[in-house]
């Protein structure tokens, strides 16, 4: 009888550990809607977006309390991209800290908006490139 209990306990422990493990695995989103929803809820998720500019990776992780962190990394720029810009931006990343339910969608839709809460060498590199852009 005791043996059965031990087995039961073992199974339950394994189940509990599996639940914990799965809860920590980030969801791999295939569209922006999924990612923004997860990010807003501060749930771990990743999203890779390829546009005319290049490929950018986004990932969300939970910090302590209600604090969440979005990591934005330029994986690769478009083949046509200028070498100087490529060298300056590729593999650079920045981390944007926000509170749960206060995710700023501009971090994904814009290259420069909402950067006040972000830190990292990607932000600096984008700031440096502003010199080369003439605004209307």
């Amino acid at each position, binding site marked *: 009888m005791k043996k059965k209990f031990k087995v039961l306990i073992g199974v339950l422990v394994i189940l509990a550990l599996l639940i914990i493990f799965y809860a920590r695995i980030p969801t791999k989103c295939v569209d922006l809607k999924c990612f923004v929803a997860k990010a807003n809820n501060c749930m771990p998720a990743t999203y890779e977006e390829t546009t005319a500019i290049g490929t950018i990776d986004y990932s969300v992780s939970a910090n*302590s309390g209600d604090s969440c962190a979005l990591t934005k990394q330029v994986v690769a720029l478009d083949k046509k991209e200028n070498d100087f810009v490529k060298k*300056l931006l590729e593999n650079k990343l920045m981390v944007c800290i926000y509170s749960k339910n206060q995710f700023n969608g501009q971090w994904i839709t814009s290259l*420069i908006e909402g950067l006040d809460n972000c830190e990292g060498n990607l932000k600096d590199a984008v*700031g440096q490139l502003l010199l080369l852009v003439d605004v*209307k």
Partner: protein
Amino acid sequence: MSFQKNKEVVVISIAVIILGLLVVSAEQALAQELYVPPVGPGCEVDLATGGCRESTVVSPPTEPIIYGIEDEETDSNTNVNNGSALEEPSEPVVGSGGIIGSEQAPPVIKKQVTPPPKKTVAPQLIQPKKQTTAEVDSEAMLEAVMATYNKQHKDEVEKIKQYYNKPPLFKPATDAQYAQSYLDELRPIRVDVVNAKGDYEDALNKGASGSEIAKLKNSYDTKLQDFKIRLQDILAIDSGSPEALWQLGTLAKWEGSNAQSYENYRNALISQRSRNPFKYQQLLDSLNNPAIKIKLMQDLQPNENIIEIPTTKTSPFLAGLKNNLDTLVQPLTTAKKTVAKNIEKISRAFSFSEQIDKAVKTLGITQ
């Protein structure tokens, strides 16, 4: 027996759930301990969040110089004394924030001494290479120029220090440390400027009264001017300070044009080249912003082969950036245009009214 069994299962299940919760909370606590907030120069730690305080977040590069074209050229020495590192360089270094950013000894020309060949020649026959008269002269000239420059520079920095009347944070203080202490003062001013700018733009967008807009614009302009003067002073002390350069970029963004920022760099560089031509290249090399660097190199050294400057036509990323910027400034531009149109209408109306008055007077019509 069956009841007893069920009871035991329930107890065990509860125990397992509690165990699971304990594991989760322990992991969270551990993660909290291990979490390193993104603290760097310009970041005031918020004890509540562990991150940077929003109001004081500025973003100097966390790694002083490791960007773009400087990646391969920069060694560990080039990062010293650039506004974030506070150690005194142990020897004269390149990239210290330029000539104005250093109280270090002038560079010494090391004389090349041929090492004695082994075995083939007797040691007593080897004579160290003597300095030629030309070498001695150029060295003396360099020292003289450096001495003159250092004096001029010291006077200039002293003036600024006296203006602020602020004691050094550390003794002996380097220019970079002075610059850093002034940057500490600049951050809250930056927040003020941002707020004033926001108020002004809000007023424009909401269609506030002319007097209200004028008042807010005046407040914004005053704060911006103060910010600019202080930033220029900081750059005069340490032109290589990453944070100051970043702030300069911010300034350019506020002003809606990067041309001003570029002009500031250009003028600083040209003025320093005329004061100390020997360190001109060092100053250029010390620039942390590769975009500004290549543009300056092409501008100031047109005969040298410089890599092609990316434009919005050759770079999809820059095109995207421009698109975002245009979107960002569009509401402001529209609001400005509307205000300008209204002013024109009013002035036309006044002009029309004046013309009627004149006509009335000319015709001698009285009411």
